[in-house]
């Protein structure tokens, strides 16, 4: 027979759980951010410690290695500057043609750099925390990416940090298009969904691809722009293998993500 104090403790805990679980979504999100704010000093300390360690590591780099790095970066910078000039010219030409055709003008993405400060402690979600929030004009559903490709989208925004749901999480399904290797023409469209058969966190499933589409390993997968959250043309990954499903009605494929989500340190947020 349970003792009276067990009943009291159980009743109190149950009461707290029921109250918190039945809070309206907005209040629950605010309470979650407030409780999570208790960890900010630790995250800040961890970030500072990492910076110190990086700086300490740099002091031991030899002068010759630094000069070689400088030389390489100068050459890369010159190459990028020439590419930028070409891109600016193409951008101007594109804007002129759009104006001539009466299409909506495209603006370059305003990007905000952010540092990854934490990961989801639970094993059944794929989310991260980044160190930008409302004070940096970040809003929910903004897109997060790196130079390699798409990372995810922002779900909850605090004053100085945000919660990002990564590609491959059950709450981050979106439409993509598969491009031909050679001429980048569109082969088919499909939906990116979490992989149900792989320990590798960098593999996701591509589902609902119409049967008969010419999918091949190596083809690149980019966002289609459908759905309105992710802009068109962001690199997602490339196809690893293809299989038929539903008696050939649909194709499914495994996609290797372009971004290594296991080693994310710095990301960019598209502020639009």
């Amino acid at each position, binding site marked *: 027979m*349970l003792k009276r*104090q*067990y009943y009291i*403790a*159980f009743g*109190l*805990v*149950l009461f*707290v*759980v029921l109250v*918190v*679980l039945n*809070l309206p979504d907005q209040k*629950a999100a605010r*309470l*979650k*951010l407030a*409780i*999570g704010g*208790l*960890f900010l000093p*630790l*995250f800040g300390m*961890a970030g500072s410690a990492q910076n110190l360690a990086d700086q300490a590591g740099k002091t031991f780099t030899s002068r010759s290695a630094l000069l070689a790095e400088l030389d390489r970066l100068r050459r890369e910078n010159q190459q990028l500057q020439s590419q930028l000039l070409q891109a600016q010219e193409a951008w101007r030409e594109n804007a002129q043609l759009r104006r001539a055709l009466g299409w909506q003008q495209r603006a370059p993405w305003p990007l905000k750099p952010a540092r990854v*400060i*934490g*990961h*989801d*402690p*639970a*094993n*059944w*979600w*794929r*989310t991260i*925390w980044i160190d930008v929030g409302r004070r940096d004009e970040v809003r929910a559903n903004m897109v997060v990416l790196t130079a390699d490709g798409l990372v995810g989208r922002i*779900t909850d925004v605090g004053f100085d940090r945000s*919660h990002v*749901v990564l590609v*491959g*999480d*059950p*709450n981050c399904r979106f439409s993509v298009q598969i491009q031909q290797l050679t001429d980048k023409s569109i082969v088919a469209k499909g939906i990116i969904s*979490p*992989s*149900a*058969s*792989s*320990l590798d*966190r960098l593999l996701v499933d591509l589902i609902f691809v119409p049967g008969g589409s010419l999918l091949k390993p190596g083809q690149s997968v980019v966002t289609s722009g459908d759905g309105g959250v992710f802009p068109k043309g962001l690199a997602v990954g490339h196809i690893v293998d293809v299989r038929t499903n539903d008696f050939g009605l649909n194709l499914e494929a495994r996609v290797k993500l372009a971004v290594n989500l*296991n*080693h994310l340190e710095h990301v960019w947020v598209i502020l639009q």
Partner: protein
Amino acid sequence: MNWLNTIALLLVAYLAVFFESSCRGFRNLFGAQIDLLPALIAYAALSAGISTVALLATLGGLWFDSLSANPLGISVLPLFVVGLAIHYWRDLILRDQRYAQFLLGLAASALVPLFTLLSLFGAGAEPLIEWWSLWRWFVISVGGALFAPVFFCLFDRLNRAFSYQPLPETSFRPDREIKRGRVPHLDH
């Protein structure tokens, strides 16, 4: 209630949740992040009162959920139920034996994620469950089991360092002392 012990438990729970969120080593190495809260609740259930177990489960669960995509509060009840069960049968558990601590940590670390997942499904969430989740469950269970004896050792040392230790009684009695040498004669 030993408040120092309760505060120390809450502090370690706070640090454990931070460690789970910020440390990527285990996740990158084994494909799963270990959870230290079940092992901690097992220690609390054997060494503290039910109010400490309730407080640890509530705060630990809320802290964990605040850094996760879990609905806030979903981890509280699984932690508390496991703590309550261990507390109820605490007299039958050999708390000083390492293998008992290991098995207790294993059971707690295996049951808490299961109960949490059941709660998540009950709440209508769609967590990422696949065949490899069995491997992750194994890693979480064994990881928690390995940390359980560490927690027992750590907190027992802390208790010994900060709590009053009565001096051991000696068998020496001054009235039974044998005195060597010449005994002085009494003059009548």
